[in-house]
């Protein structure tokens, strides 16, 4: 037992390669210059930005609006990013590199918002609140990915599982008029797909990327088929109730944080609950150690008496459960009906969030929130009458995903045995 646990526990990313350090540092300095020259210089000194700090339609945990001088704020933000960039360039943040990149990205987003809303008012709290909501499918997708990949299976089918889950949740929810049964239906359908993925990848040793693609094509085809054949002709099948906002007692009254985090629907709470359970289970329990050892060194794990095949099935099925919840979110927690292709790549963005978060639940949540925020900005800013076309704002999450992948996928962070079928000798 000790040998395996040692290998796994010592796998930290201790340093970032010099080229990467310089690359990231330079990018951050460029961002600082962008904030300064594009945003700050063009803003006159006496313009004010007003941030509304309570989401619309909420009367718990209200807070006064924030009014501040636009240019000064932009200068401060540029200074912070510049400092981060310089430090990164000269010394480097080591293990905290990704975190500091996240901080710099956050500053950039804030600067962008301040610039866009200069001379106007912007409901920041509303934006954050919808960012949390939009982060749910991405984060759950990332958790689903973690569960599969920590035991050594690349799960590229999260998108397909979510799509199937969202449709089944809508149908079951409509038939039973019970949101909980709808959620359960969504989970079951997703788990079924996870089982197929598991059989293909584990039993038949099909290349995991391809077996994932099978699931994705199947799901896209099947949901479109059922949607056109039944949902469009029988509208009663696509009219589920939705999970409503549940303000948590006391917590919902905290100013700003209350409305954003504790006055949401059940999916947001589920996301946090899964986060805590996953973080503890993976890193504090024997179960988690076994799961991870199968993902890192299945042969060693097998020698120590861990059933590799069984562990992998368990991991992939749990991955299906989480993806199913993420899928049900679309129909029961966000839109209220099923539309073809409504997951719109969120499953894949979830995978990117998982990578950005270093295959750690907490990091993935951070990445998910960042993506959700990028998504929220797009929809809110088009209301402000921004000069940037809405289509370009809608590209933001995808662009950020690519930049994140390019910059921050260090070597040796992914589970070592990921993608390989296990053959017992």
């Amino acid at each position: 037992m000790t040998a395996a646990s040692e290998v796994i526990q010592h796998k930290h990313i201790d340093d970032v390669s010099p080229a990467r350090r310089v690359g990231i540092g330079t990018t951050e300095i460029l961002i600082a210059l962008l904030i300064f020259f594009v945003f700050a210089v063009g803003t006159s000194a006496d313009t004010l930005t007003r941030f509304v700090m309570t989401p619309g339609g909420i009367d718990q945990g209200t807070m006064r609006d924030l009014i501040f001088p636009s240019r000064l704020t932009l200068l401060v933000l540029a200074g912070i990013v510049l400092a981060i960039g310089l430090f990164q360039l000269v010394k480097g943040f080591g293990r905290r590199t990704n975190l500091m990149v996240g901080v710099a990205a956050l500053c950039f987003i804030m600067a962008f918002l301040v610039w866009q809303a200069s001379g106007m008012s912007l409901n920041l709290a509303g934006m954050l609140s919808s960012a949390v909501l939009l982060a749910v499918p991405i984060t759950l997708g990332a958790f689903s990915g973690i569960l599969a990949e920590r035991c050594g299976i690349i799960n590229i089918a999260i998108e397909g599982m979510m799509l199937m889950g969202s449709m089944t949740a809508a149908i079951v929810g409509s038939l039973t008029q019970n949101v909980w049964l709808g959620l359960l239906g969504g989970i079951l359908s997703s788990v079924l797909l996870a089982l197929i993925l598991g059989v293909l990848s584990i039993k038949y040793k099909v290349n995991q990327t391809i077996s994932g693609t099978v699931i994705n094509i199947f799901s896209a085809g099947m949901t479109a088929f059922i949607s056109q054949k039944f949902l469009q002709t029988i509208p009663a099948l696509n009219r589920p109730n939705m999970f409503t906002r549940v303000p948590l007692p006391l917590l919902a009254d905290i100013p700003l944080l209350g409305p954003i985090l504790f006055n949401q629907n059940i999916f947001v709470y589920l996301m946090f609950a899964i986060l805590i359970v996953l973080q503890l289970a993976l890193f504090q329990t024997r179960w988690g150690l076994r799961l991870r050892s199968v993902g890192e060194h299945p042969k060693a794990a097998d020698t120590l008496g861990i059933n590799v095949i069984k562990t992998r099935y368990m991991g992939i099925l749990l991955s299906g459960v989480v993806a199913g919840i993420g899928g049900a979110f679309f129909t029961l927690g966000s839109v209220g009906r099923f539309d073809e292709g409504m997951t719109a790549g969120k499953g894949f963005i979830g995978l990117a969030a998982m990578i950005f978060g270093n295959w750690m639940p907490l990091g993935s949540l951070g990445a998910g929130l960042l993506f959700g925020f990028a998504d929220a900005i797009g929809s809110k800013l088009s209301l402000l009458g921004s000069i940037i076309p809405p289509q370009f704002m809608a590209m933001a999450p995808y662009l950020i995903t690519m930049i994140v992948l390019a910059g921050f996928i260090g070597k040796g962070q992914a589970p070592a045995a990921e993608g390989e079928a296990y053959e017992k000798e």
Partner: protein
Amino acid sequence: MTEEKKDLGQEFLNEVHETEPEAEKSKGSFLSKATIPLLAILTGLIIGALLIAITSPTVWAAFGNSIPKGFSQAWTEIITSYKALFTGSLGDPARMIQSLGSGDAQEIRRAFNPFLESLVQATPYIFAGLAVALGFRSGLFNIGVEGQLFIGAACATFVGYSITGLPAWLHMPLAFLAGAAGGAFWAFIPGFLKAKTGGHEVINTIMMNWIAFRLTEWLLSGPMTRPDSGGLPLSPIIQKTAMIPQFFEKPIRFHAGFFIALLAAYLVWWLLFKTTWGLNLRTVGTNPRAARYAGLDTGKSIIIGMTLSGALAGMAGAVQILAVNHSMALGLSSGYGFDSIALALIGNNHPLGVVLSSLLFGTLRNGATRMMVVSSIPIDIVDVIQAIILMFVAAPAIIRSIYRLRKPKQEEQQVFLSGWGGQS
């Protein structure tokens, strides 16, 4: 670490031997190679038939009446649907013979049109399938064919309508190549990112898809919009000189692009199997580590493979615009990019296999349109069948156990795809 050092020499030798590309030639006759795909297709169609029966309310009603009635109703519906599928895609044999007897040229063309239309449908599939196959051969999973196709189509459309006064022999190839260049550029980005940063192409190409959709949406409703479109995202109609000629009068759409596709397939085969470039691509594709030891520049190979793949995808978009649609709208593609993944794998990533599987799926999709009219079965059933066929092709052991086939002496060659770590 030390363990790895010890065996490095032996490992290197083993890996170099593994990549002997000549080994492929000795892999048995065409028929034995085609057994699994053919059985997979057959099984896929059978499961599709079951799906038709299971999702039909009339069949359920008949089963409620009595079990034999249910089966007979299911049988009738499957036969009607599949008959519509095949007459809609290949033509009605009786009508074809009759038209040949009558000697009426118009009637002959009409009778053969379903078949010709299947070829029209197959054309973009051939290009897109080749794009994915070339990627797989180079060890790259290009899921971004759909986006590259959109960008290619947009470039071809732009060159097609904005340039005037060129002779057709120059304008048409120019527009077509513009499409290829657009697709190539769109695929170059993820290729470059993979080679230089290790960002995985699967996620990057998918992200590029979404960016391409938004970009074309913006282009078609902004800079490239048709003046009288009334706000609809629609491009102007391309010049006559840019159009790839259709052979017959309307409504028959059969066009010269089909033969360009066949030519492209031949060129891809020649590139992959007859040139040093192709050998390098395939070596990196099957065993990147050995390729690196052998001194090949894997990064360059990744970029070239991805760019060429994107060029083919761009051609798929260009040919649709220049030969069939003549202007660009958002509904340009019925998912060619995603279907092409299945096509490439079913065709064993071989250009000839891709052409054959493209013909099959062009036919199925064309027929499914007719089936939708006759028995109101959504066209997306083709996707479901496709996924099932793909599953069986990817896991031949399932097919072998269903049909009790013997295990082959040689293990099937699996596509090599890397994990998230990038180039290892």
